């Protein structure tokens, strides 16, 4: 089952973990065969929110919701169950600086 691990950090902690460490941990997860995709994100100053209302595209500056911690990156992992997903999330380096939200992926019912 797939889980999306969303990494949240306070703005001043965005570079608290060196990129090299994040790259290495991503590599390790890839070698274990549990990583589907992972990316770090630019800060929320670069975010744009898009909505479609009455057929019109509305574009606004900034993230959908302002929070103290911001979404800083994500790992999409393939784990056997929540315990394995938690175990993987605990190995994501920014977990020690901010927090990692683990969300199971929902299969679409077309």
């Amino acid at each position, binding site marked *: *089952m797939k889980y999306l691990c969303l990494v949240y950090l306070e703005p001043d902690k965005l570079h608290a973990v060196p990129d090299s460490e994040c790259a290495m941990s991503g590599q390790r997860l890839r070698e274990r065969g549990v990583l589907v995709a992972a990316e770090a994100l630019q800060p929320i100053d670069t975010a744009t929110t898009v909505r479609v209302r009455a057929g019109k595209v509305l574009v606004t500056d900034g993230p959908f919701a302002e929070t103290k911690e911001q979404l800083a990156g994500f790992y999409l992992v393939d784990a056997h*169950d*929540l*315990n394995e997903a938690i175990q993987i999330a605990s190995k994501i380096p920014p977990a020690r600086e901010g927090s990692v939200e*683990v969300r*199971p992926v929902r299969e679409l019912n077309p």
Partner: protein
Amino acid sequence: MPAAETVQQAIEATYQSESRRVLATLIRLLGDFDAAEEALHDAFRAALEQWPRDGVPSNPRAWLVSAGRFKAIDAARRRTRFDALDDMGEKAEPVFIDTAAWADDESVEDDRLRLVFTCCHPALAPDAQVALTLREVCGLTTEEIARAFLTPAPTLAQRIVRAKGKIRDARIPYEVPSRAELPERLEAVLRVIYLVFNEGYSASSGEQVTRHDLSAEAIRLGRLLVELLPEPEAQGLLALMVLHDSRRAARTSPDGDVVLLEDQDRSLWNRDQIAEGVRLVEQAFSSGPPGPYAIQAAISAIHAEAPAAAATDWNEIVGLYDLLMRTTPSPVVELNRAVAIAMRDGPAAGLTIVDGVLDRGELRDYRLAHAVRGELCRRLGRTADARVAFERALKLTRQGPERRLIERRLAEVSK
């Protein structure tokens, strides 16, 4: 043919002793709490039909597990038949054969432990862990749990539904944690059991000092855990609960008022429970450095073994609090240690520590910190300070009998 009444009694007795075991195994076999509960009901319904006719089976548990599983598979098949063409041509599985394979004693006991650990999974909210454990492991009804926790039944039902939904959708595994994970996960289980016990022992609000059912349920859970997983801290927690419970008859007056430990009639203490508690403490201490539950149980055991309040070995108790401060330091432990110091070295020594804790602001809103301060000031003859402290304690207390106790103390220092 056996007498119908005897069979009826046998089914009821089987329900009492086996229904939680059967449920735990069905959850593993079916992989779903709701399906397992439905299967459990179907299995007992089948027993009510068949046992009076065919007699009580030699292994009722195995019979129930296999009947429940069969019914569940049957129900699932019937459901899928509506959804899609049933072109598999699958033959009915010979589910009634070789039932022992999935219902032998060892795997069934493992299933009970799996159920406990799943209900107390840290990914579930603490109040949901408590509700789910009482519902699934103890078999209490939603209404019973709601009443015990003074929570509206729909709120509680919602909590259980949400927890089960998370177990299913986030795929919380149905397993006993590995050795490496065990200490942390066991701690969560012990916390749930102790919470249930405390809710029953010193209800946080309401008129009654004790709600016996919850304490009894927690002790039953503690016993089950010790039986399935004889870890020192599980023994420690059971010892602690049994020792506290041994004073049940002495800790309230006939009018329902609180009687403090030092004023209790020790002849009312339950000697069998004390003996069991002391034995468990010794077991827990014999296997390496004791954990916080074992240490608290040891403190309780010293009180239990003192023939009179004046004969309490306060030096020993202070030593155990020192140990507790080293393993799990907290302001509440420090407060309790201050009381022991006051008993050993006099109220002034205790008050210095209590004031230190209060000055740090950590227990500013903790009723017992102010009650202790009031009591120590009273003993030192500082009645004005005692009055202020008791008044503060009273403001923070919601429980009826505890309020009356503080009011009595307040009246004494207001004379």
